[in-house]
């Protein structure tokens, strides 16, 4: 079975750098940038559990499944 792949986007206007997402990610995908905003440092490790999305109090994170990848076709 093909491993699902995900993309994490962080809306920097909304992110307050609280680190909730970073702390709750089981795969340690996210980190805090120099601008004190969360960013997906290891996006390829994301398993799409959505914990970051649920725990973000600021609606800054969106996790989307990457579809239509040429490898899968």
């Amino acid at each position, binding site marked *: 079975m093909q491993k699902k792949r995900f993309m994490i986007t962080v809306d920097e206007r909304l992110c*307050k750098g*609280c680190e909730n997402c970073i*702390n709750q990610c089981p795969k340690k995908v996210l980190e805090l940038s120099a601008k004190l905003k969360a960013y997906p440092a290891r996006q390829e490790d994301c398993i799409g559990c959505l914990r970051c*999305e*649920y725990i*973000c*109090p*600021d609606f800054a994170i*969106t996790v989307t499944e990457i579809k239509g990848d040429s490898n899968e076709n």
Partner: protein
Amino acid sequence: MKTEIVLSYLRKDKLPHIWCPGCGHGIILGSMMRAVHKTGWKKDDIALVSGIGCSSRTPGYVDFNTLHTTHGRSLAFAAGIKFSNPRLNVISVMGDGDAVAIGGNHFIHAARRNLNITALVFNNYIYGMTGGQFSPTTPYKAIASTTPYGNIDKNFDIPSLAIGAGAGFVARSTAIHVPGLDDIIYQALNYDGFSVVEIISFCHVQYGKRNKLKTPLSMIDWLKSIALPIAAYEKLGEEQRRDKIPIGIFKNIPTEEYSQKYIKEIIDPNKSKDSILKDYCKAKLYDL
């Protein structure tokens, strides 16, 4: 994916919200919006009412008919809205002090009266906005700005209070038990009568910093360690239950909703009419 749904119900130009970085309230707001989405209600048909406090800023961010009222009075305003226009879906958000201190009387009577209002109590154990004074839910011995030597007040158990006052749907969850919280709120919204969901939020800024839980992470870990499903909680002995909080649905029984009862039992078109009103008030002014 989920964020898109949440944002579609928010007034995006009002974001970012005023809550502190990491605050549980934002997490609850997201959960609420996903639950509302699941009901399929139209934004125009929802009234979201609040009182005063951090949680009560919620309506400002939500694209419904929104009302930010006076301290403790959310449910009283909500009663007027729901009873006068039962077509509207009415949600009332409150903080702990808002709901059961200054608004305690409205809370118990709303539960007794049983208008179809969903009361969501964001309980962060503290008066956050005013600087960390203790509330009626602040745990025993906890430190607040007005309990510098530890709290000696007994605290309210909100679900017990709601059940005692007659609410038909009573549940508790926490800000960190998402997406389970989505489902509990959804069930509360769908309940035809007065429903209460106590949602344990967290305030690391005012409560946590005084009680050795000064980061969101430490508060989240603390909540994880104390919250457990009702069934698991009930298996514990009395000693073990101390410092634990049962979460889940405590009560969910069908009841007869107040405004429907009023329409059915009080507004009787066959009743003989006052002679003056017959002549002066022919027109029906609004739809029931």
